[in-house]
């Protein structure tokens, strides 16, 4: 199993630090924030998506992969969004 390409290496410890800070911010917001509930949910989900994107881009190296691998990895995302939206619409009915 040969490796064919050499990837650029990001600063993994900086990403780790960023993930740590975002987690602390998330917990702080969930506990202390006086935000309206709908805004709170949007902010927390936004932070979680940001963290997940950091992991996928830098730890799973998607940022440095070929386009075809990025497309393969992204393929289920529209389906996942459609599934969640369909469920939310079902709930809203």
């Amino acid at each position, binding site marked *: *199993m040969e490796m064919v390409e050499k990837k650029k290496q990001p600063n993994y410890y900086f990403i780790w630090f960023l993930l740590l800070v975002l987690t602390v911010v998330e917990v702080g917001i969930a506990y202390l924030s006086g935000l309206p509930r709908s805004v709170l949910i949007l902010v927390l989900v936004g932070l979680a998506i940001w963290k997940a994107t950091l992991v996928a881009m830098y730890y799973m190296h998607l940022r440095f992969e070929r386009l075809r691998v990025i497309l393969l990895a992204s393929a289920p995302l529209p389906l996942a969004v459609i599934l969640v939206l369909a469920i939310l619409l079902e709930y809203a009915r």
Partner: protein
Amino acid sequence: MNEAITLPGGVKAEPGMRIYNQKLGMWVFLASEVMFFTGLIGAYIILRFGASAWALPGVPLDEGGTPLNINLTAFNTFVLICSSVTMVKGFASIEQGDQKNLKRFLLATVLLGAAFVGIQVMEYIELAREGFLPHCSEELATVVPSCHLFGSTFYTMTGFHGAHVSIGVLCMVWVTVKAFRGGYTKESHGGVEVIGLYWHFVDLVWIILFTIVYLI
């Protein structure tokens, strides 16, 4: 790597994606896993928003608060994030041909992964003792809103994730033993990359679950 591979019967396989088979297989598997966890999250959304009330974080238990220990789980999230950085550093080490650091980082990843599972088991034991189960105790059901529904969805989602982490730890042990036997080199270390992809995916899923199940 990019040349055609001869399969049994003399059939030439097309190197379409130009990545090695194990990595391609892992990405396809992870794509299916995205849909698996989306199904679970979708079920949680419809059950939760369909319920008349739900336990909230930051509220005392007797006022409709959550029985979950958010501080402990936040620490566990930190443990899993640490295991992701050790995993990727192990991979980066062997890319440079650094076997010594590969072994160190893989060992650290195994220990951190096992710690995550251990803390989750402790959390389950504590919650069960308090009566928070897929079918809550009668006492807890009177104070926690939609307790049975909350318990069922909580254990389903975190349980499936915990099973994924446990399988990941077992695979990681295998990769670590192979690393200690000198099985990976600068030129050939696909096993480390493939198990790393799985491990980071498990971390990524937890990031989403932690927010949805514990914080919202």
